[in-house]
């Protein structure tokens, strides 16, 4: 969905499941060409590489479980395809080294989806730190409580929980590998400083778990900055409550995933400032504005609201062509709503112009 947002990227082929039949069925459902639905990633890389340069895919997106990152990524690079991949990068440090070497030798673009870092207000935070707006960094606090593994969800057959808590699939860490990595990445990304050493305590609170479901980490950074990460998957009731705070010698920044269009800018003895997203906000840094799509006061969900109207409308157009009625999912504002809107406006204008009197809405055509 994210790849489609700007109309620059088109899905042309893929492997969509480890079950080959399911993979092909899904590809058909989204109207891909039958000859570009593949059963395995090896088949896809080889077959796409044989196509003409015009026709072949431009890059691969890898969104599999952690243990299935390395092999497809290496294969893609070997066949000359740039890669965008979910984090964590791979399963072991050894795989990471091989991948990095491969990316360097091929020179191909390689992207990692540390999603949170690219919220506009965190891009702004990074730019403000770089621009010395909070002075030299002293302290970073990153919290990431989630509650979804508070009970032993992996025993219920829930797929995500099952693989994330399985050392064979998730690797050496569950909680820290999944969400602690986001915290560490944000600390380095926004401060521009490297984490040099850590003191950690990982816990597996839910009995029977071998991998961590909770983590507390002190860290030290370059230039005497320090910080703390507290991440948990057993924080009852917390959904995805990532919060980032950074304190410098001249000010502080605070951001929360649950209110991601806001960046608080704090200076001792001055009113806290609320920075908000909006392409029209000239007080934001240029890199922030280049990473936004909507005007101020219009959160990203606004685009989804629009998308619902377009989807429901196109559903109806499709059904209209085969002379059936719209399904339940799909209403959208129609001609009657437009008419009523005009009737409302004209009644309001008449009421005011006539000296503020009750005015009937004439919504019968």
């Amino acid at each position: 969905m994210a790849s489609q947002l700007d109309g620059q990227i088109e899905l042309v082929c893929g492997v969509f499941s480890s079950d080959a039949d399911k993979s092909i069925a899904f590809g058909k459902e989204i109207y891909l060409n039958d000859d570009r639905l593949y059963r395995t990633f090896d088949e896809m890389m080889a077959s796409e590489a044989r196509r003409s340069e015009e026709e072949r895919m431009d890059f691969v997106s890898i969104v599999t479980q952690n243990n299935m990152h390395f092999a497809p990524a290496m294969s893609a690079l070997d066949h000359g395809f740039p890669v965008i991949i979910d984090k964590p990068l791979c399963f072991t440090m050894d795989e990471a080294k091989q991948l990095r070497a491969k990316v360097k030798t091929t020179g191909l673009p390689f992207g990692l989806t540390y999603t949170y870092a690219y919220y506009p207000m965190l891009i702004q935070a990074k730019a403000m730190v770089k621009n010395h707006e909070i002075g030299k960094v002293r302290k970073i606090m990153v919290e990431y409580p989630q509650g979804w593994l508070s009970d032993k969800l992996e025993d219920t057959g829930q797929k995500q929980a099952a693989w994330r808590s399985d050392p064979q699939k998730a690797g050496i860490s569950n909680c820290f590998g999944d969400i602690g990595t986001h915290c560490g990445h944000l600390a380095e990304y926004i401060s521009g400083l490297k984490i040099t050493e850590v003191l950690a305590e990982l816990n597996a609170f839910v009995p029977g778990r071998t991998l961590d479901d909770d983590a507390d980490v002190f860290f030290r950074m370059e230039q005497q900055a320090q910080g703390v990460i507290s991440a948990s998957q057993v924080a009852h009731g917390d959904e995805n409550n990532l919060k980032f705070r950074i304190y410098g010698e001249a000010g502080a920044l605070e951001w929360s995933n649950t209110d991601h269009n806001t960046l608080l800018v704090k200076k001792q003895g001055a009113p806290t400032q609320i920075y908000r997203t909006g392409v029209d906000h000239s007080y934001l840094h240029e890199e922030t504005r280049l990473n936004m799509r909507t005007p101020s006061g219009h959160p990203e969900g606004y685009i989804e609201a629009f998308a619902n109207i377009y989807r429901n409308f196109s559903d109806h157009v499709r059904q209209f062509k085969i002379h059936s009625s719209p399904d339940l999912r799909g209403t959208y504002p129609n001609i009657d709503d437009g008419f009523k809107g005009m009737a409302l406006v004209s009644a309001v204008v008449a009421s005011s112009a006539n000296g503020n009197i009750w005015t009937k809405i004439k919504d019968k055509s």
Partner: protein
Amino acid sequence: MSSFIGIVHRVAAYMGENYVLTGGVFDIDFDKGNQFAAQLELDAARSYPSLDIFIEKELALTEEERIQVVSILTPNFLHFEMAKKLVSAGFNVICEKPITVTADEARSLEKLVQEKGVVFGLTHTYTGYPMIRQMKSMIAQGKIGRIQKVDAQYYQGWINPSIHQEEERKKVWRLNPKMSGLSCCMGDIGVHAFNLIEYTTGLEIDKVLADLDTLYPENELDVDGTTLLRMNNGSRGVITASQIATGEENNLSIAVYGDQGGLKWEQEHPMYLKHLIEGAPTQIYKPGNPYNSEFALESTKIAPGHPEGLFDAMGNIYNGVAAAIYGRPDRAGAFPTVHDGVRGMLFIEAVLSSSSQGQVWVKIS
């Protein structure tokens, strides 16, 4: 005096250490009034059965001994008669709002206060919040420019459970015109919104266009209303008030917009005043900070970041200690004890020791 508003007045009066509760007419039922006086260990001779006797006996005392100021906290219909008698007898008065039942009564009272030269205070409580005073100061300083729009909302839901059955409705004195006066919703809470608008802006509301609802034809007084406003500088505004906004508690808010910016405040979050500035980040003003006006700073008793509820918290601890001294049944956690002090010191020592030994686990013993 034992009602909700009685407690608020009493605690508030003690807060500045300017008042001592000396005597009064504490209940319509003299026995209950005496019980109240005994509970507070007041001089029994100064618990009076009626206001007339109160005035007669107090005037017989020397000026040094005599009560200086009287608070009127009765149902609305009694305010005027009591205030008139007290002012005529030369007492200073603090009166709950609404000041009277009709505007004519209020004007005659104003005249009497001027003649007698007493101090008369009306408890439009919300004007006492530090951030409302800051708002008033900022508007007076021209921080938001020429005012062009005001919007005050006051939503409560407490009448909803009583309004739908006649029997229940009869129990609500505010719905009884004989006790409440001309209006319930606008008289009780709409007037707060009105007062806040005039108080903060320094403007007067010149004329109104109102739509009130009693919800049931047999219910005599309004429980909901919307009022359009024209201000004496030509600008427009609106007051929306309701006591049947189901689920709302005491949701009063005010927004004032000028040609340079806006100011917004909510009673349920009283420590935050938002200053909206075109093309710049919104600023959050909070009490006690040096950037506030002198008037707002004088109205704050505690350090920044300490909400007004701190007084309640401290009061609860004092109450807990008193209960223990009087040997009342011990409620665990009613106040921190010497043992909590020991635990605190052990904690601090362990933390220092852990850090100085190079970050190792240290037992709290």
